[in-house]
């Protein structure tokens, strides 16, 4: 912290007196923000690193040593988890990449009907909460009772290919449909749309067919964007947690994040080896994190000249078939699992369709009486609202400092804001567990909802700050300077010019943070306790205990809360014409 204090005092000296009041104020603010963000981002990671070398049972005498690391790298169960993490990620990313590039190209560059609605559909698929939808998938694809296979069995002369969702390929499939492909489409479509159509057309007029043009011109030119999307997707895949936990359990498939979770919750808890495992995970991530920083820092060469046209390719007779195919895919990944989930809340036994009378409304009546459920609902609302308010204030401050000031050390703040998005939620959770259990000052917070609010805010920080910052940059410094020039004070300017202009984007962030906090699982999984348990953890506990029926109602509640918040964000965003991040 000494460095920061020194930096801020140097700042104050270098600025001319006439500007001093405004700049001194922002410098003080900057120091506080930097210190708080720095503490919550870096200290838990530091604790993890330290404790990975602490050998011995938690709470008993410990000594320094490499035993945890030795366990992490040599125990077969851990080695298998690392191998699973890597192979699952590689499989998912390669399939998602090919599909995503093709879909993004069709939506952005061709005259497929309703392309804006199709893009919106993939956005919906992306925000839909993972765990609730997973129930829908299980209902559909379960090897024994899955609806799809029961229906297929009724078709004569059709031999059904055996597929079990509780398997390695089940994990791959659910990830691809839930986030893998939608995320690629979401990231790549705007990039494809911004490509100069003349680059394609020049190839056509040179005598090259559309198919060859896609391979020889479009994909190579889009390579930087595709690479960024791949690296981001890889980081996300390596962080995945809840799908692996539920679908991997019966087949005893572990990945690093689920193994960390199991080791913390087993008795006695294996804090030492789980912490070492977390550090192994961070090491696996480092090359991708470096690649991401390098790629985004580099200027993309996607457009050579500034002017471009965005004309579309005609699909001719393929127009409607292509539309129908994409629409079917969209329905399959959104409406189908969501409706199955809602349907399942009225079932007596989850997934058992062939009871004499499978339907009941008792599951919903239980809401009124089950105190665990009611308290979880309140916890979720409190968590969402709290994280949302904290985010709006803190993210705007960070964005303002980053976009509008020329303070030295701003780069450190940018780095700190970006770091949490690269670290798996379960590892952030583990770091905070060390923080809250191991630091006497913070121990009273453990088990309160505030713990969850802090980590949920941290988990949304990168995207949230980025969106507000983009909005502020777009506004242009002139608007602010014009107000100062005509005699508006810094505060007056902030209140009358900046705040009203960025308010819509801040509101959007508030709603988005609400949605992500309510459905967050991995980042809060290790910090939940009976007192602060939100809906998402209640559902996780039901699911990992194998009781699927009560989980369905919880899932629908989460789905409702996140959908309302996300749609609200979308509507505000569209109304004020905000660009996406």
């Amino acid at each position: 912290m000494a460095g920061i204090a020194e930096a801020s005092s140097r700042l104050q000296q270098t600025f001319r007196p006439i500007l001093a009041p405004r700049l001194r104020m922002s410098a003080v603010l900057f120091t506080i923000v930097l210190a708080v963000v720095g503490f919550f981002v870096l200290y838990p990671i530091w604790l993890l690193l330290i404790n990975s070398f602490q050998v011995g049972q938690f709470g008993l005498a410990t000594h320094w040593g490499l035993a945890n690391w030795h366990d992490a790298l040599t125990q077969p169960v851990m080695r298998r988890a690392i191998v699973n993490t890597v192979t699952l990620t590689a499989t998912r990313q390669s399939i998602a990449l090919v599909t995503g590039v093709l879909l993004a190209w069709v939506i952005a560059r061709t005259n497929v009907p309703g392309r804006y609605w199709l893009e919106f559909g993939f956005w919906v698929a992306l925000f839909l909460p993972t765990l609730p939808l997973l129930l829908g998938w299980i209902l559909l694809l379960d090897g024994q009772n899955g609806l799809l296979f029961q229906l297929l069995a009724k078709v004569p002369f059709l031999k059904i290919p055996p597929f079990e969702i509780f398997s390695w390929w089940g994990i791959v499939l659910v990830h691809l449909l839930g986030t893998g492909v939608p995320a690629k489409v979401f990231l790549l479509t705007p990039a494809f749309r911004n490509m100069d159509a003349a680059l394609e057309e020049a190839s056509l007029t040179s005598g090259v067919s559309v198919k060859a043009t896609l391979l020889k011109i479009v994909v190579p030119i889009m390579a930087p964007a595709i690479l960024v999307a791949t690296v981001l997707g890889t980081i996300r895949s390596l962080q995945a947690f809840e799908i692996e936990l539920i679908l991997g359990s019966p087949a005893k498939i572990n990945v690093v994040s689920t193994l960390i979770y199991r080791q913390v919750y087993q008795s006695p808890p294996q804090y030492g080896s789980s912490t070492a495992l977390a550090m192994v995970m961070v090491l696996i991530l480092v090359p991708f994190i470096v690649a991401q920083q390098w790629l985004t820092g580099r200027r993309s060469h996607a457009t050579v000249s500034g002017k471009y046209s965005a004309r579309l390719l005609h699909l001719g007779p393929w127009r409607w078939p292509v539309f129908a195919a994409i629409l079917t895919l969209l329905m399959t990944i959104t409406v189908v699992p969501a409706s199955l989930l809602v349907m399942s809340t009225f079932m007596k036994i989850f997934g058992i369709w062939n009871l004499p009378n499978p339907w009941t409304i008792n599951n919903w009546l239980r809401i009124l009486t089950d105190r665990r459920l009611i308290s979880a609902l309140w916890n979720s609302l409190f968590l969402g609202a709290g994280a949302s308010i904290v985010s709006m204030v803190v993210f705007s401050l960070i964005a303002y400092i980053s976009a509008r000031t020329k303070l030295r050390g701003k780069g450190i703040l940018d780095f700190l804001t970006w770091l949490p998005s690269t670290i798996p939620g379960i590892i952030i959770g583990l770091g905070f567990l060390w923080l809250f259990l191991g630091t006497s000052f913070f121990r009273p917070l453990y088990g309160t909802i505030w713990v969850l609010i802090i980590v949920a805010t941290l988990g949304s920080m990168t995207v949230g700050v980025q969106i507000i910052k983009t909005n502020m940059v777009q506004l242009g410094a002139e608007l602010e300077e014009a107000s100062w020039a005509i005699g508006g004070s810094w505060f007056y300017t902030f209140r009358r010019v900046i705040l009203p202009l960025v308010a819509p984007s801040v509101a959007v962030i508030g709603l988005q943070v609400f949605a992500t906090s309510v459905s967050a699982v991995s980042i809060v999984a290790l910090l939940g306790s009976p007192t602060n348990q939100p809906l998402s953890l209640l559902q996780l506990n039901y699911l990992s205990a194998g009781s699927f029926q009560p989980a369905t109602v919880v899932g629908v509640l989460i789905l409702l809360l996140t959908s309302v918040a996300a749609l609200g964000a979308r509507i505000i965003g569209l109304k004020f014409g905000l660009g996406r991040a």
Partner: protein
Amino acid sequence: MVDAVSYGKAPAAVRATNASVERGAVVTLRGVTKSFGRVEVLHGLDLEVRRGEILTLLGPSGCGKTTTLRLVIGLERCSEGEISYEGRIVDSRRRRVFVPPHKRNMGMVFQSYAIWPHMTVFENVAYPMKARHAKSSEITTMVGRALELVGLGGLASRPAPQLSGGQQQRVALARSLVYEPELLLLDEPFSNLDAHLREEMRAEVKVLQRRLGTTILFVTHDQTEAMSLADRVAVMDRGSIAQIGTPQELYGTPTSPTVRDFMGKTVLFECTLLGRDDAGLALVALAADAGRQARFRVSGGAGIGIGERCYLAVRPEQVLVHPRNEMAPDQHAKPNLFAGQIDALLFLGDRYQAQVRLTWGQELLLYLPAAATWQEGQGVSVEVPEDEVTLWPA
């Protein structure tokens, strides 16, 4: 995926059955209409590009000139009418014929140049040759020749993003010339260059075209560019061709106010036609200046009846301006000489531009020779030459 614009099964291009080939037309558009949704941007366009000529499509933005170009190469498809190229119909909805752009063997240079950033100069230019499955030795020779032609001989291995605007322009040109297409289409190719480079490239393209004999269809909104480059100019207005002819014809004898104003600046005087004789001389009474009568040798305005109100139009560079105090007193009485005063003087280097206010308050933007000395507030006589004016209906 699928071909860009192939609708249904199109039979191989059909032989056009008219005589346009013998007349030397490379491309013929007949009754071409193009709609985007409910908006019709081209209405029954007829156009012929003759072998070896530079034909320029000139018009304001949104007049349909770029759409015409894109129809010719096949990046868009006609809604009605047909297009034939080298005697073969390449686009006709009625005959269910459509040849996609990559099978038309024309060249096109785009406004944004569309240089592929992931390739070197050589790879960019070699791309169409590879698409035609040329032998690698042939590719090297042809690419080298094309680059030599546009003056980029030494830059073959340079990556595309490291090129300046003018160099990108030349690469785009080389890329569309390397396979020696019969027809080259240029879509506002110079609009992204600075003024100096633009003039240089114009001259270069014309020299190149004269040397290779390639037919060029050129689109621009810049009338100077159109006139200086073209053998023939077609002025387009709201989806149809307003007038087509040599630049001199269009500049000197425009047939509509749109063409007149688009081809250059015009000075207008409101007047009434009093009479005309067989030799083309017309007597008019100016609306201003107490109905002063003047006689001009006019062209156009055939439909204007005696006693009708009309406009006298003259190009500003034809108007002569004399310092008033240097003229003999009797000259002031000449009917085509108007008194005025210089309100503002702008030095352009080779001449002056002046805002001149006539005695009845009309303001004209005129050119003055740089040789004489001028000052603001000076009294001048404005002489409208007797045989350089055209007459237009009010």
